[in-house]
């Protein structure tokens, strides 16, 4: 922790970055994002197992972009998100400054290639609980699964927290906001909810970095992250590639490779 603070102060003092984005203690002990814009504000930084939020989400926001170069305290999921954002040209490669904490050591990663290298050492498997849940759902019959999601999605209030918390949902104008034509009904009724979540899952297939932020953000506790996890897993199975592993654009759903499997054409 001290090493991290030390590094953050160094970066700010040298003027390498304009701010350090990390975690601080918020109301009722929750961990909230914290922008340290001067060495004094660095002291509020914390990093423990309660820090789960994917901070990459903030980097594409106008307000943050205007700050200039920002160093980010990056969990593996944040690192993957960053690579995917570079691949999709939302961040410039030279704008990367990641602080990866490994044990007591702080590593500064300052290019896509370095992040790729660092990530290659990690095997960030899906949380066991999520894996078990997906397996449980896949073991169900189609009808049971349909009933499960109908039940779950009936609680959705269309607050779009899942969308807004997602690092890959950076579009300025979301399909959900499109009203000529109104593809998805605005109201949170059965059809509108289902369409929204299906569209979201499809838009993230091959792009989801599996951070699970959407599920954590949901105020009514719908496991919406399982939908995008599953879409991503299917893409990985069909095309043998995952999002967030390279800074080069390699989107499975828009490219053709001669060795792509054709099992989905039936």
């Amino acid at each position, binding site marked *: 922790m001290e090493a991290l603070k030390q590094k953050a102060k160094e970066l700010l003092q040298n003027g390498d970055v304009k701010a350090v984005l990390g975690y601080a203690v918020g109301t009722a002990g929750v961990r909230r994002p914290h922008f340290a814009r001067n060495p004094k504000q660095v002291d509020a930084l914390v990093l423990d197992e309660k820090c789960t939020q994917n901070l990459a989400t903030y980097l594409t926001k106008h307000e943050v972009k205007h700050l200039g170069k920002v160093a980010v305290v990056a969990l593996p999921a944040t690192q993957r998100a960053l690579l995917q954002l570079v691949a999709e040209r*939302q961040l410039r490669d030279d704008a990367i400054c990641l602080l990866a904490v490994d044990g007591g050591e702080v590593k500064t990663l300052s290019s896509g290639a370095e992040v790729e290298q660092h990530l290659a050492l990690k095997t960030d498997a899906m949380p066991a609980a999520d894996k078990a849940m997906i397996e449980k759902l896949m073991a169900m019959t189609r009808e049971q699964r349909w009933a499960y999601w109908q039940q779950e999605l009936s609680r959705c209030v269309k607050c779009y927290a899942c969308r807004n918390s997602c690092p890959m949902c*950076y579009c*300025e*104008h979301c399909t959900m906001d499109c009203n000529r*034509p109104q593809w998805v009904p605005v109201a949170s009724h059965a059809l509108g909810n289902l369409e929204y979540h299906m569209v979201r899952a499809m*838009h993230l297939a091959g792009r989801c970095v599996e951070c699970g932020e959407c599920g954590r953000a949901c105020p009514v506790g719908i496991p919406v992250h399982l939908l995008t996890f599953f879409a991503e897993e299917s893409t990985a199975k069909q095309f043998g590639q995952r999002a967030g592993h390279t800074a080069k654009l390699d989107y499975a759903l*828009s490219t053709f490779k001669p060795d792509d499997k054709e099992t989905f054409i039936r």
Partner: protein
Amino acid sequence: MSRIGVFTCHCGENIGATVDCAKVSEMCQHIPGVVHSVDYKYMCSDPGQRMMQEAIKEHSLDGVVVAACSPRMHEPTFRRAVSNAGVNPYMCEMANLREHCSWVHEKSEATTQKAADLIRVLVEKVKHNTPLFPIKVPVTKTAMVVGGGVAGIQVALDIANGGHKVILVEKSPSIGGHMSQLSETFPTLDCSQCILTPRMVEAAQHPNITLMTYSEVEKVDGFIGNFKVTVRKKARKLDEKLCTGCGLCIQKCPNKKISDEFNEGLGTRTAIYVPFPQAVPNKPVIDTLNCTFYKTGKCKVCEKVCPTNAIRFEQEDELVTLDIGAIVLATGFKLMKTEAFPEYGYGKHKDIIDGMQFERLASASGPTAGVMKRPSDGKEPETVVFIACSGSRDRSKGVPYCSKVCCMYTAKHAMLYKHKVHSGKAYVFYMDIRASGKDYDEFVRRAIEEDDVKYIRGRVSKIYEEDGKLIVKGADTLMGGEQVEIKADMVVLATAVQSNDRSEELAQTLHVSYDTYGFFAEAHPKLRPVETNTGGIFLAGACQAPRDIPESVAQASAAAAKVLGLFSQDQLTREPIVAVVNRQAGPTFSYCVGCFLCQTACPYQAIEQEHITARNGDVIKTIARINPGLCQGCGTCVATCRTKAIDLQGFSNEQLYAEIMTL
């Protein structure tokens, strides 16, 4: 509120017999926005069109739905009619009552209802239509012909004579192609070089033709009328402007034992060489793989003897980028090698040769000066066996197709041999004789009847050497499959015609389709035989399929006609059915967020980057831009775009949504 007219056509009995057109017309009257609805026996006829135009004026229509046949059939007709009445042609849509309804259903109430529904859908679309205007693209009136064989030369000459500039790119040091290697040509037995070399010289001297020999196409960007082609000019290692072609360097080159490609390995050449004496241009190249200087760093004899100091050992390949309006591919073919035949000894017998090697043996300019000598010991062969369909029509060799020219050239070879060796015996093993062409069958009959060539219908199973003879074992299927054994001195395999070595790579560079065998694919096998699926790229000769000389030349002239047609206009008019990226006022500027996933999805490379800049030149935002000249309106980008920032003109999201929601 829209003022839409619906015009229902009976198409004679085609629609009228199954669909109650009068009733459909009546039903359409009540669709909101429709102010006029009539039916008529033949809407596409002159009175039908006139009726439409009068209705447009009388009822001040601003949109038209014609319920008739397929838009592929008559959309241009009706759009023209509407346009002549003063309404934008893209405000006219067609409901396909024939192919989508009357032809596929029985006469019934439901069929009539479906017809009305089809029209209702299109009425909703027209309500959302916007006037569109054809896209004009300029045309660069310079053609590029890739491949300098007989087809390429013919294309180049025809376009050049039509008054346009042509750049003829050939990968080898001289133009002429395979035809320059042939001895005589069927069915007239006239000398190949005698008819080809004047054409080669004509191409070289033509003021409109620029030859780029020893050059290869590296990269192609752009689109019909506006290609940007990068050509690699391989280093000849000499200054072409200074070289006079005196040939002193070739005479003095100490390295004389290099296998000669032009003579198909039957002769030798020097390290600095011209492929053949009549080469155009008559300027040598240095073969850097075999040149002593490049191997050991010493020699430079050619440099010392050159009277004009034209040798440039340090010369590098040069990349030239050219503006081109149309490209004709005439890259030709290659022959399967004798190595591909285990049953005929894997090419290890020197006296088992392929058709092109026989051409060189028979040619007056060949390694034997036209005297029949077999390659192994230079003896005159007394018995020669010709095997047609060597590899062709043979699935096990991966060539199920017919190579087309072999039946004819095998007959020619047998004849040439008999004309040179009067006492010799010539046998031809064949599967079928395919001699369909002007004077072709007569030619084969002449070989059999006048020149006494023995034709045996059957396959050869094995060839092996015994006592200096090649034992050819085969079957005669016309004699009930009787075994035949011939002791031959030389065997000529009419090996299969295959696509050229790098044809698939070239096809990918140019984005043209190709078949399983690597031959370039035409846009339509019957009606568009010289066009490719990519606008502005045409085909000539054997790069498309096995072809003989007359066909290659005919196809070359056809391709030239297509190019001249394209060049006859200053601007190309294209349908405005293209995708556009949404633009609006700042600070958003566009819904596009610049992720460029659409760029990877576009099959036509039509999506480029556009920088939106502030007045001081700072880039505010980078978004996608679709080049209307390249876009084919397939809509893949529209589907890929998550933010719905791309829309297809004429088939916009709004139009399609309205169509679906009305059902």
